[in-house]
């Protein structure tokens, strides 16, 4: 199918990530199989990008190895990624913290499943805290993007790389089992060539590609034994996070202009709430939906602004209530913020979301 010059394809969210990665000039993928995201690596292996763009795809022995391969390649200024699901992403936290400390760009995809522990393979959003509050040790933040459609799985993969390199930070695509497994229409991003080594040297002079003659060597490290030096590194990171918070907030508003009540939800929950908004409107309740696309940085200002003109918020998540804490911080007591969630892999239905709004907030 063609729409203009763009080809419309039908594929799973996980497959869209693989296609988008190849197209945006990704240099390497390192991963370990885990449901519900194994299609990312399977698709890459099927597409054999090493024959076309030269992208390296390698199945690692563990998620620990995967994230450290990402570290190694990112240290060479390469555009690299890994993908996993919740238990695997827990294993990666050490590596993510090291990447944050070493100021290395890279994309980590988490197609969340229900936990804790081995949990379930069904969808979940219970890794919100882990993603946006810093899942590993030390003071760091990680830009976190929440796709709500197959199209966004592709688009936000590209954006994740852009943010990772702009802010020299690991960046997460935080999806869930449904967005990963569902098929929808998608227009894939245009092809961008991979950077040449000369381009990498020019753009990322810190990259360890081999020390040019007469130049100082590059060191990729997160180690500073002197407290003052380590504090300075932290200050640099924090300054970068403040810029991120100012410049990179992204969200979508649906029917918020005249809304009395606003759902706040991301990923699959936002899709469910979109239908709940339709149900509410059909019953004469002016409901809207605010869908954060960046979970970090969080749309604090937008929520503050809405809290001046709406009667309340209902937060819907596939968890016991994680993002709701950030919504409450932003609303700061101005209007009620209610929560409804399902856990362990259960997805609330649009009716459940609507009933939560009606019963908890309106009554």
């Amino acid at each position: 199918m063609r729409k203009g010059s763009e080809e419309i394809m039908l594929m799973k969210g996980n497959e869209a990530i693989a296609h988008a990665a190849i197209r945006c000039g990704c240099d390497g993928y390192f991963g370990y199989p885990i449901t519900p995201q194994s299609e990312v690596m399977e698709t890459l292996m099927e597409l054999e990008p090493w024959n076309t763009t030269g992208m390296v795809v390698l199945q690692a022995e563990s998620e620990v190895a995967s994230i450290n391969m990402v570290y190694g390649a990112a240290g060479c200024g390469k555009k690299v990624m890994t993908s996993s699901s919740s238990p695997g992403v827990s294993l990666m936290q050490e590596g993510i913290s090291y990447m944050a400390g070493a100021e290395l760009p890279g994309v980590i995809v988490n197609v969340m499943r229900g936990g804790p522990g081995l949990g379930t393979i069904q969808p979940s959003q219970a890794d919100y805290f882990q993603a946006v509050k810093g899942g590993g040790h030390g003071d760091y933040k990680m830009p976190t993007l929440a796709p709500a459609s197959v199209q966004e799985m592709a688009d936000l993969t590209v954006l994740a790389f852009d943010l990772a390199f702009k802010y020299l930070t690991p960046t997460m695509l935080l999806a869930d089992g449904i967005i990963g497994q569902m098929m929808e229409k998608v227009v894939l991003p245009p092809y961008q060539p991979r950077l040449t080594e000369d381009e990498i040297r020019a753009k990322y002079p810190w990259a360890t590609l081999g020390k040019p003659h007469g130049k100082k060597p590059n060191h990729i490290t997160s180690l500073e034994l002197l407290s003052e030096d380590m504090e300075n590194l932290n200050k640099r990171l924090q300054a970068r996070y403040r810029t991120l918070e100012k410049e990179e907030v992204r969200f979508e508003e649906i029917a918020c202009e005249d809304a009395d009540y606003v759902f706040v939800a991301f990923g699959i929950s936002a899709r469910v709430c979109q239908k709940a908004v339709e149900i509410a409107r059909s019953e004469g309740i002016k409901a809207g939906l605010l869908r954060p696309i960046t979970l970090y940085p969080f749309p604090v200002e937008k929520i503050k602004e809405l809290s001046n003109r709406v009667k309340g918020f209902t937060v819907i998540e596939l968890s016991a209530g994680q993002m709701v804490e950030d919504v409450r911080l932003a609303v700061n007591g101005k209007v009620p913020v209610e929560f409804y969630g399902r856990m362990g892999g259960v997805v609330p239905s649009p009716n459940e979301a609507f009933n939560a709004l009606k019963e908890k907030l309106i009554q």
Partner: protein
Amino acid sequence: MNNMNITDIVNPANLVYKKNSVLNDLPMHYCPGCSHGVVHKLLGDIIEELNIQEQTIGVAPVGCAVFAYKYLDIDWQQAAHGRAPALATAIKRLLPDRYVFTYQGDGDLAAIGTAETLHACNRGENIVIIYINNGIYGMTGGQMAPTTLLGMKSTTSPKGRMYERDGNPLDMPKLLAELDGVCYVTRQAVHTVGAVKKCRRAIKKAFEYSALNKGTSIVEVVSTCNSGWKMTPDFANRWMVENMFSKYPLGDIKDTIQA
């Protein structure tokens, strides 16, 4: 000779030995008597001799050699504990014409990084692994390592390592030599001039092999840790010869290229 003054001595014409240019002019943080400094020097020698300073990327471990990147004038990455072979894998895969080596201790390679080491070797990554085995955790103050000898005392085995509790010392190179992905495994030491010369040849061979794309090369250097062992440097060397070498005998374990 008696009438030579300082100017005569530093006269380039009288030069008999020169530090290689890859080794930085920095005082090392290693304890006096430690083997690390010698191995660093050998690495510098070989990188200079092979003229690969601009093509070499080192991966430093967590352990005493965590600051290895300060001492050799090449590009370096510093890895999380045990993960150096994973970093090296990715670097070499993305930059196949570079020389990539890891520099790891026995805690790093044989304990926390066993999986990364074994799988990098099993995939036959064309990298060099320099493995410093001193039978103890030096950096953290002398705890038991997977390589600590039976009966050997450490801060976490104050009465000596016990087989019943701690198992036997782990001989990783012997184990890794079993893998088809590995082309060269050798065990060396740097406690005598002769040993240093042999070790130098082994490291050089490992770097040359890594350019042949025939698999992983591993050079173990059985080393002393006089601080951790609580011995004088001289006594530590003798103790190593008498105790370590029977468990970790020196020499080539595998060489598929020369064979």
